[in-house]
């Protein structure tokens, strides 16, 4: 078949400097039969087990949450990231994301699940000693023990490395004595084992495995939250808390490596979970729109409602394309690693870290996409969206947290631009040559575009322009601010937005191209419409951000030159987004849910 993916190891961030070969882009259409079956098991579990218990979960009946986590563990769904020798099912990151997406359709349980299987488990998988793995992973994989991750404190969240919790070796050298507090800890109310970060001797940032029944360990009162009320969030109080020395995780002073590595995984899984939430909201919106009558019609007949439904579907399309493209790249890189080699876990971490920028993009993009969807779901429900009896209200509250944890979206935007700049400076990513090539190209004046009458040629051209604009602006901004760019956050943020949109558009187009190759025009028509609808809004963001930065970094002739380049790069026939959305809405409403 012409459209199978090929598994070349792709460098992180390369979408920004080279044209994408769609055949190298993993898409949901590449799921194996096994993947689909796992998706089905997870979805059935959500529908039959989680959904009927949603109210009990919301009442903070943690025994229900624990029971469900145990059942999930028995099915093998909580341990895909755990090696087989510790009772895990050890599967690829695509599987891991598929499970996150399908289990995480309602906020509260999704967060408990995510903290346990992700940030609570992975530190031990990646940094644990053999003894730690034997002791803890087996229990975590079987669901006997629930885990949690304690990094934040009341006075340090984003700035987590600046924590106050302190660890001092006991005089007999057998224990670390931990003092301090941790705040906002998911699963704290019922977890059995915690990954706790503290500074050895108040200086060396390090991680520890702390059991709930350790002397001097206490969990404070539950927070009263805006959303995800059925999840547990509470502080930890460490009062001369005795932790055996063998529970030091990783090396002293290297806690930041643990913290940052874990967050990469947390971020793409959060993205997958947001897709799950989006499916649920869209389903509710469709149902309501079809049932609710006004002016002698159902509201699903109204263009402004149909437009919202179409945009939600486009959000899911772009979101799942982003998540699975990224984890597909990870799996391709991971498949080259010999898992029995002594340094295997380090190689695995490195392979994932390679895609740090994509993980941050997913985190920001998907959390904002879901927030948009739950907001419009409330709108479609009208007054019924504003009361607790209907699902829109809870989803609206539940979604909000995604922009705050796993690194706030501000922090992640800074990471995106900062990471790219760093890679460019170190020469790991050929960003500077790409910028130079581009400058040469634009300075040589307008050229006749090459004839391209293949399908999606116009869309590919838009992506190419977005890529060029991002490079142009990144180049102009770094030239102006040099090292001080990191302090010019508004510019960093605008560049991040351009990068995010470029990756998203590029991914949508690549998937549509794959579908066209595999299924022909009729089979790909919905994907093409969604791609076009996405591009239309996305390119507008790129343009806006480009102008915003240009106006800041240039003036006079320089600004006029840059503006003329921008105009050249943004000269494309406007996409008929209304027609595209009408087509999408008709299909989605007919199906009653998002199916591609």
């Amino acid at each position: 078949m012409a459209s199978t993916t090929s598994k070349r190891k792709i460098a992180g961030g390369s979408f920004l400097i080279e044209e994408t070969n769609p055949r190298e882009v993993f898409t949901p259409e590449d799921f194996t039969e096994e993947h689909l079956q796992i998706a089905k098991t997870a979805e059935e579990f959500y529908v039959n087990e989680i959904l009927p218990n949603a109210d009990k979960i919301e009442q903070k009946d943690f025994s229900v949450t624990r029971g469900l986590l145990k059942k999930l563990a028995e099915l093998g769904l909580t341990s895909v990231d755990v090696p087989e020798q510790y009772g895990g099912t050890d599967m690829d990151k695509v599987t891991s994301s598929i499970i996150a997406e399908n289990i995480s359709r309602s906020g509260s349980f999704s967060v408990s699940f995510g903290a346990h299987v992700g940030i609570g488990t992975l530190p031990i998988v990646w940094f644990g000693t053999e003894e730690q793995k034997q002791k803890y992973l087996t229990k975590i994989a079987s669901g006997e023990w629930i885990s949690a991750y304690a990094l934040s404190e009341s006075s340090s969240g984003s700035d987590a490395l600046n924590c106050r919790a302190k660890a001092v070796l006991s005089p007999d050298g057998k224990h670390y004595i931990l003092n301090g507090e941790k705040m906002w800890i998911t699963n704290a109310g019922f977890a059995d084992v915690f990954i706790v970060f503290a500074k050895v001797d108040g200086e060396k940032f390090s991680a520890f495995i702390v059991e709930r029944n350790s002397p001097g360990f206490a969990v404070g009162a539950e927070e009263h939250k805006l959303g995800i009320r059925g999840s547990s969030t509470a502080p930890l109080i460490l009062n001369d808390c005795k932790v055996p020395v063998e529970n030091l995780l990783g090396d002293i002073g290297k806690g930041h490596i643990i913290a940052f590595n874990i967050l990469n995984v947390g971020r793409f899984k959060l993205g997958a979970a947001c897709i799950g939430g989006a499916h649920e909201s869209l389903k509710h919106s469709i149902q309501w729109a079809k049932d609710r009558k006004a002016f002698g019609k159902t509201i699903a007949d109204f263009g402004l409602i149909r437009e919202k439904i179409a945009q939600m579907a486009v959000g899911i399309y772009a979101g799942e394309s982003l998540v699975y493209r990224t984890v597909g790249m990870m799996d391709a890189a991971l498949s080259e690693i010999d898992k029995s080699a002594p340094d295997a876990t380090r190689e695995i971490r490195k392979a994932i870290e390679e895609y740090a920028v994509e993980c941050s993009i997913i985190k920001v993009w998907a959390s904002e996409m879901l927030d948009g969807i739950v907001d419009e779901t409330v709108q479609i429900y009208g007054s019924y969206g504003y009361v607790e009896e209907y699902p829109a209200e809870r989803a609206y509250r539940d979604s909000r947290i995604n922009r705050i944890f796993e690194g706030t979206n501000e922090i992640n935007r800074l990471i995106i631009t900062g990471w790219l700049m760093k890679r460019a400076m170190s020469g790991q990513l050929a960003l500077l040559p790409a910028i130079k090539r581009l400058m040469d190209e634009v300075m040589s004046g307008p050229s006749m575009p090459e004839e391209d009458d293949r399908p999606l040629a116009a869309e590919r051209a838009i992506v190419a322009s977005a890529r060029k604009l991002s490079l142009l602006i990144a180049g102009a901004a770094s030239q102006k601010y040099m090292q001080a760019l990191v302090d010019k956050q508004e510019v960093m943020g605008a560049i991040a937005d351009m990068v995010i949109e470029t990756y998203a558009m590029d991914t949508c187009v690549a998937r549509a191209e794959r579908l066209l190759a595999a299924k022909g025009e009729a089979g790909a028509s919905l994907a093409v419409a969604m791609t076009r609808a996405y591009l239309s809004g996305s390119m507008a963001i790129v343009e806006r951000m480009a102008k915003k930065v240009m106006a800041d970094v240039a003036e006079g002739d320089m600004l006029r030159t840059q503006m003329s380049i921008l105009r050249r790069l943004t000269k494309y026939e406007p996409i008929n987004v209304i027609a595209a959305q009408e087509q999408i809405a008709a299909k989605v409403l007919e199906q009653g849910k998002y199916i591609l």
Partner: protein
Amino acid sequence: MLRPNGPVARCWVKILVCMKQVPQKDAPLKLNEGGTWIREDVSYEVNEPDAYALEEALRQKEKHGGEVVVITAGPARAQQVLREALAKGADRAIHLEDDRFVGLDAFNVARAFAAAIKEDAFDLIFTGLQSDDYGYAQTGVLLAELMGWPHATIIMQIEKKDSGIRVKRELEAGFFQFVEMPLPAVLTIQSGINKLRYATLIGIKQAKNKPMRKVSWDDVSGAVGENLQKVEKLYVPQKTKKTEYLEGSPAEVAKKLVDKLRNEVRVL
């Protein structure tokens, strides 16, 4: 094979479960161009009663040992139901793979099954009570006849006896019937008699390596006759609205209304 927990040397249950792939319950159906069946581009799933039949077979196997084999007749896509069954614990699968099995009458499907399992010696054959698409409830009964075996339908419960099995059948109006019957036998299983299991990740991983025997149309065509069933026309019922004013004195109107409710609408 030895039974894990019993004195009887021969494991008595070697069960065949007949499973069908049908359009998903909530899938929006569209008629095909000829108006003779639905269009193929819908989502499919396991016929619900068949899922219960499989679950029952797996439970019997867990209790008494033995083997569970699943069989389906349908195009390539139908293999999915077999994979799912293997992931849930079935030991092997038989796929009669051909587009011509779509829309084939129950008698010929039963003949094809009988031909395909000639070499196997099953003790029990389970089918779902009926399929969610055509809903004929015939395949199991016809298969029993072809095999020369006894059968019982609408089974709620199965219990092993020395002489064979004792089954509970669901009758009308809340009545049940208990039947003792010898083996081998065919049972058609009612939905909801047990709690379906999920396919575990390990099960899904292992399913790949379980045997799946393909049977072609040619392999069984000698046993299959001309399709005895033809759907002439399939259509979506026309919804019509008719408003009728009942006239006369209140007493007359009331009388007419009662008459209509009783004899036309038949709700009284």
